[in-house]
């Protein structure tokens, strides 16, 4: 496995770069016909609009009065701008703030630990002289193929680790991704051996080499992975679904899930409606507040993501 992966990674990278550069000026590839070009652009723009429309719907609903949502229904564009939903949220923001702090804490802490631990296993696996390399390759491969699934996992966490309703369970299980270990290893393999020989001759130990040379040289790869890990923590709601029932530990996405459930419970049993439950507009406003930061982070760093996915796809 490792040999062909490594070879592919080192050989393909520079070659692809050169070709995509020459692509710009080559007449044979591009479409000459202007009508055809325009058609392609129109189709792609339509697909892109479809990808964006849901965001518009959510934002517009959050800026619509509840009255209008009930009478006229949801819409892509708000009929009259109304910020009541946001005012309602910020009148009693405890749950939102609590969920924000849980999500931010778990995402940041989880991402740092995840990258640290994954680099620490990927680095030895990338060095040819590491004695247990074969063993570790197999060790990482088996669980990738054969997954125990959620039933044993649920019993393990609740009965044996006793981690129900703790912050630990929120960042621990989603931490390690085998796909990312493999990707990191592929990046580390490309670092020439001479670098390490020189560092060792200067008296650097393996830890020092990892945290200065390797991390420094693989910075783009590590940045991409940090972004992916961070966003997957941000979007995680399943862990809370399985193991959290204390609202102070709800992450944002799970809070949103609960808001929807509360609304459904109310719809089924109206006699429960003593307290004011979140309306459609309020829930949409919560969705905007929960997704906004993630979407912003994505837009700022998406350039690195595209590179990372592209490289990863060719291993």
């Amino acid at each position, binding site marked *: 496995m490792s040999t*062909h992966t490594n070879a592919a990674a080192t050989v*393909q990278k520079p070659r*692809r770069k050169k070709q995509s550069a020459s*692509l*710009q000026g*080559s*007449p*044979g*590839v591009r*479409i000459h016909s202007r009508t055809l*070009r325009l058609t*392609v652009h129109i189709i*792609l723009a339509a*697909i*892109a609009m479809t*990808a964006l429309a*849901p965001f518009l*719907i*959510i934002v517009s609903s959050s800026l619509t009065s509840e009255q209008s949502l009930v009478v*006229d*229904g*949801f*819409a892509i564009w708000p009929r009259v701008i109304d910020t009541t939903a946001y005012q309602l949220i910020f009148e009693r923001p405890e749950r939102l703030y609590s969920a924000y702090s849980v999500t931010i804490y778990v995402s940041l802490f989880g991402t740092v630990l995840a990258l*640290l631990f994954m680099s*620490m*296993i990927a680095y030895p696996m990338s060095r040819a002289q590491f004695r247990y390399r074969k063993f*570790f390759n197999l060790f990482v*491969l088996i*669980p990738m*193929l*054969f*997954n*125990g699934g*959620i*039933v*044993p*996992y649920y*019993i*393990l966490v609740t*009965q044996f680790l006793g981690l129900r309703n703790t912050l630990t369970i929120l960042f*621990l299980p989603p931490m*390690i991704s085998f796909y990312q*270990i493999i990707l990191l290893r592929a990046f580390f393999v490309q670092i020439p051996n001479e670098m390490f020989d020189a560092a060792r001759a200067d008296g650097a130990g393996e830890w020092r080499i*990892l945290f200065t040379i390797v991390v420094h040289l693989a910075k783009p790869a590590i940045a991409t992975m940090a972004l992916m890990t961070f966003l997957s923590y*941000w979007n995680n*709601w*399943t862990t809370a679904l399985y193991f959290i029932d204390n609202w102070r530990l709800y992450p944002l*996405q799970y809070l*949103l*899930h609960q808001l*929807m459930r509360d609304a459904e419970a109310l719809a089924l049993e109206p006699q429960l409606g003593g307290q004011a439950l979140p309306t459609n507009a309020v829930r*949409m406003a919560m969705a905007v507040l*929960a*997704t906004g930061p*993630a979407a912003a982070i994505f837009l700022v760093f*998406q350039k690195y993501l*595209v590179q990372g*996915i*592209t490289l990863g796809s*060719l291993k």
Partner: protein
Amino acid sequence: MTLPAALWIIVFRYITLVGLGIAFIDYRPRRGIFGSEFVGLRNFEFLFRTEAALRATRNTVLLSLLFLVVGMVVALTVAYMIYQIYSSRMTKYYQTVLLLPNFISWVIVSYFVFALLATESGIVNVMLRNMGREQIAWYSSPQYWPFILLMAHMWNSLGWSSLIYLAAMLGIDPQLYEAATLDGAHKVRQFFSVTIPLILPIVTLNFLLGLGNIFAQDFGLFYQVTRNRPQLYPTTDVLDTFIYRSIAGLGNIPMASAAQFYQSVVGFTLILTANWLIKRTSRSDQDLSIF
């Protein structure tokens, strides 16, 4: 150095793998794993006697196949279109916009699907009303859901998968297209005669990996987007949601563990088969098999 990650892998992956063995005991939380009674295959007998398990298997396989085939065709087409205008400044924007949904959680997806399909105020029903047509109670009409789920899946995954194919297409020598153009091949012809044959290894790899993963589904899509409505189970209940419901709703761990064992073992067998097929089909100079 490898210790923290290795410990994590042992605890969360290897122990849970061994834990699949609870499928063969009558697990009672109070008695614990070692105090519960060994019942052999009885849990499996119960499992396969329920219609829901067979229905979940059927839905899992059919929906996976639908997602795999349609997903692949659309992603290849979109990648080819982006490739054709690759030098355009717009390319960057298309890619970014298409990729964004991949990083949005299924909870949010369920929110806007609700805004589209809600019976009284949903956008689709309002449109139907304005056109003078009868409204549809989407959340209690299972017949539409394979298509709705397919749309949600495509919305989420198209950016990522087309990006992967685009990367492969950029590796093709442009001179081949020049030659094809000189020979009078139009763009569609070039797609089938130049593009597809040259990126076939990646396409095959993705297809076989998809086949190997046919038994595993994206839990969030089926649980959130359908809002876990029992009326929709006939077409949307898959193994993952069935297993989750057996633990969370019914607390029936013996049944859930039998279903889990069944899902894991069949999934593993499928992946091994897929890998064997990749080995068989790939040329000797570029073995793409996973292991």
